[in-house]
């Protein structure tokens, strides 16, 4: 079947079987391999992309459902020149290690902050709890998203006092 939709602002048309998932279509047909597949049943969130503004699991979405839709993948979050503010915040806070879950974290957080730039730390944690990360323990990811809020029109970032007078100390105290 032929399906036509927009990916990262550009119109695409591709031939898929009815059973082809959006993740497979993006990765194989369109060679957008930034969208990662970690579980194929909607639990890990690595494959999250943004469809018409909503964060969507591309492993649980069929490609043919995308007819006429506007899809944003991790490749569409920034241009050649620079990282997006959200990506730069991830880098500053060491919010990624192996990088496999990162595209899903970025798309999920981008969709959230685009709708809710003032999202509280609790709200951010709740939304990100649908995405698994095995490397970071989540604290730096949550911190990076808090830091990025300002770029979406949300509050300025206030790093809490690292405290403890120690080199390399950091704290995860309640905000």
């Amino acid at each position, binding site marked *: 079947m032929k399906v036509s939709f927009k990916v990262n602002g550009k119109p695409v048309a591709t031939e898929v079987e009815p059973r082809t998932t959006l993740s497979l279509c993006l990765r194989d047909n369109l060679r957008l391999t930034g969208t990662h597949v970690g579980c194929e049943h909607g*639990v890990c969130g690595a494959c999250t992309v943004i469809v018409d503004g909503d964060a969507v699991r591309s492993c649980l979405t069929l490609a043919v459902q995308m007819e006429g839709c506007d899809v944003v993948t991790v490749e569409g979050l920034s241009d050649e020149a620079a990282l997006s503010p959200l990506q730069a915040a991830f880098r*500053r806070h060491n919010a*990624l*290690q192996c990088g496999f879950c990162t595209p899903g974290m970025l798309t999920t957080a981008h969709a959230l902050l685009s709708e809710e730039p003032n999202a509280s730390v609790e709200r951010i944690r709740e939304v990100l709890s649908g995405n698994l990360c*095995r490397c970071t*323990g989540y604290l*730096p990811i949550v911190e990076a998203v808090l830091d990025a809020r300002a770029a979406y029109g949300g509050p300025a970032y206030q790093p809490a006092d690292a405290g403890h007078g120690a080199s390399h100390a*950091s704290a995860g105290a309640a*905000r």
Partner: protein
Amino acid sequence: MNAPVPDLLPESTPPDGPYVGRSMQRVEDLRLLRGRGTYADDVALPGMLHAAMLRSSVAHARLRSVDATAARAMPGVHAVITATEIAGAPGAKVPTVPLRLQPLACMEPYRQPVIAQDRIRHVGEVLAIVVADSLALAEDALEAIEVDLESLPPVADWRSSAADQTLLFDNTSTNRGVTFTARRGDIDAAFGKATHVQRERFTIQRQAPVTMETRGVVADWDAVNSRIVVYGAAKVPYFNRRTSADMLGMKHSEVDFIEGDTGGSFGARGEFYVEDFLVPFAARHVRRPVKWISDRREDLMTMAQSRECEAEAEMAFAADGTILGVRGTAWCDLGAYPRTNGLIQPRNIAHFLTNAYRIEAVEFASHVQFTNKGPAGTYRAPGRSETTMFCERLIDLGARAIGLDPVEVRRRNLVTADDMPWHFASVTPSEPASTGVTEADSGDYRSTFERCLTEFDWAGKQALQGKRIDGRHHGIGVACFIEGGAAGPRENAKIEMASDGSVTLYVGSTSVGQGLETSLGQIAADALGIPMSALTLLHGSTTYLSEGFGSYHSRSTVMGGSAIIDAAGKFKQAVREAAAVYLECLADQVVLEGTQARSPRGRSISFAELARSEKIIVEGTFANHHHTWAYGAAAAHVAVDARTGHVAIVDYLVVEDVGRAVNPLLLHGQVIGGTVQGLGGAFLEDMIYDAEGQMITGTLADYLLPTATDFPQLRAITLEEYPSPINPIGAKGAGEGGTIVVAAVIANAVANALAEYGVNPTSLPLSPSKLWQMIETARAA
């Protein structure tokens, strides 16, 4: 809450002073954040076919035959490969997986066949490989394969394994592969003079490392040169290249393992998995590139599981709280095969019951028991997480029994700087290459303990112990740990000046997501005296060096970094010698300033000019038969809801002395990430098999990992008080410390909170249902 923000510099800005010690942002992030990494499944080759594995659905059976006639006739199917094709000749045996770590001769009969040939020993064992035009067609064909098997009684736990009623391997008389025993001092004398002996039985559940990227292999057969290139290598490409080539009957130089981006390891990628042979074999068989990507269920079944054991342990105390000795026995459920690293957990369990303490007498036996579960291997802090919990629970319980403060008992027994180098118990049998002697390199284990108590405000939180606030029981706990790292024997590096004067550095270390390009780039830039942006660092792939070792045992920064320092010294000397000819002075007189070489008379030549006529290429190596020992302590404040069994972490602090932190930002990430992984094992994660040897927890909805809402309150402090004397960086391997101590400190804190009921957590996980049950049972008693 914050990540440490001082010193954050883009890698392109040369700092004032050395790169090492700075929180540099990562080089690799620029591609990973844009979705431009190259993980195994991102490799796509022209003409590539797709493989799917037929896996056993039963745990134990005799395999009579695999009939693939119908599957082979299906459209789009290029080949179905079974043990018959792999063995080659009638009666021939398929290759078996060699042990990489602790390669003991007695393991020979227990080695894993690369494909089930006449016996099936676990659910998920490979029976056949289908190669087809697409994955969907390959999976369809799996269903057309006829398997004839005769069920055998499953050996589903270590007890039935130890009974030896059903033997799992031919030519053996027992399912006990080997017993590791640690000995030190006079154990009978120590227990003879004890005023109190604390005796406990511990049970640790089976856990799965769960890398977010599943395993995958893409093999490319090069018909022109009769070579195979394998993508998807991680952690130990050189060992796996040798192993795969030997099994394929090819020269080592005819097989290359290429490392791309790797989506996590946590120890589990350090194996040689059968697919590392099966997929290249299939590619050669069909003379086309073949891709195989594990799905999540396959990954949970076949990637190294770990930790499952039961132990009886005793600790002997003198009246003043001196720990006189420890002894006991552990039974480790290794699942079906030892594979390459399976012996590490049972060996470490024997070794480390003494943890960070000056305990003169030790006798501890750790039995390796094979069962019909998925094969076990190494998982972040193998054996150490387990023994640290045993030791720290015994101290808390023993101290209370003799009426002493557990904190005082720890103070009395912790290894101090005066005790260095502290010798651990010796373990038999030991691998042939090992000297058998293990000693701590440097440190003062009491200083991190004191620092932890102070920063945690232990004294201030004393009043919380057992207190009920808002219906929840509050408790505090503390535990110490040591973290071995930097395993030998060697690591290699090569530095090359290209024809344009640019500097490329190759190292045998591998990246599994820990930011290796950045941390080793910092070390290299300092050693070469050039900006990080002026050098390219390439790692892992077997095309770069004749020999490399990789990343395991928290070794890559120390071993790879030290090899780079050696190579950099040789490189600078080679540049001085080459430049001296042009500068008309002695080599020793040449001064290197960045990428310029200058003579005493002020003449200079750039690397770019020099490279037009000179080829400079040097190799460096770092050999080490001793380990580094980072160490520390952690404290936790928990609140337990006795009505639900839920435990909330109110505060958690870990303090670790790592000798020297190359990149504090990345190290901090390792400690916090490792802590959350440990919390998963303490509270959530449980790889369950039923009595038939069936894996029950086959999805990520069943095997529960921590999420962003679970553990938001964590702190970590890194100290650099005692640099390692055994490497030029002074760093100690430090990727596992966060994980090691978690179960111990949580169990102590939960026991403290529930002291009024006498709840004694000696088994994991402390899931809400299990803890609730323990509370109910204790209340009823």
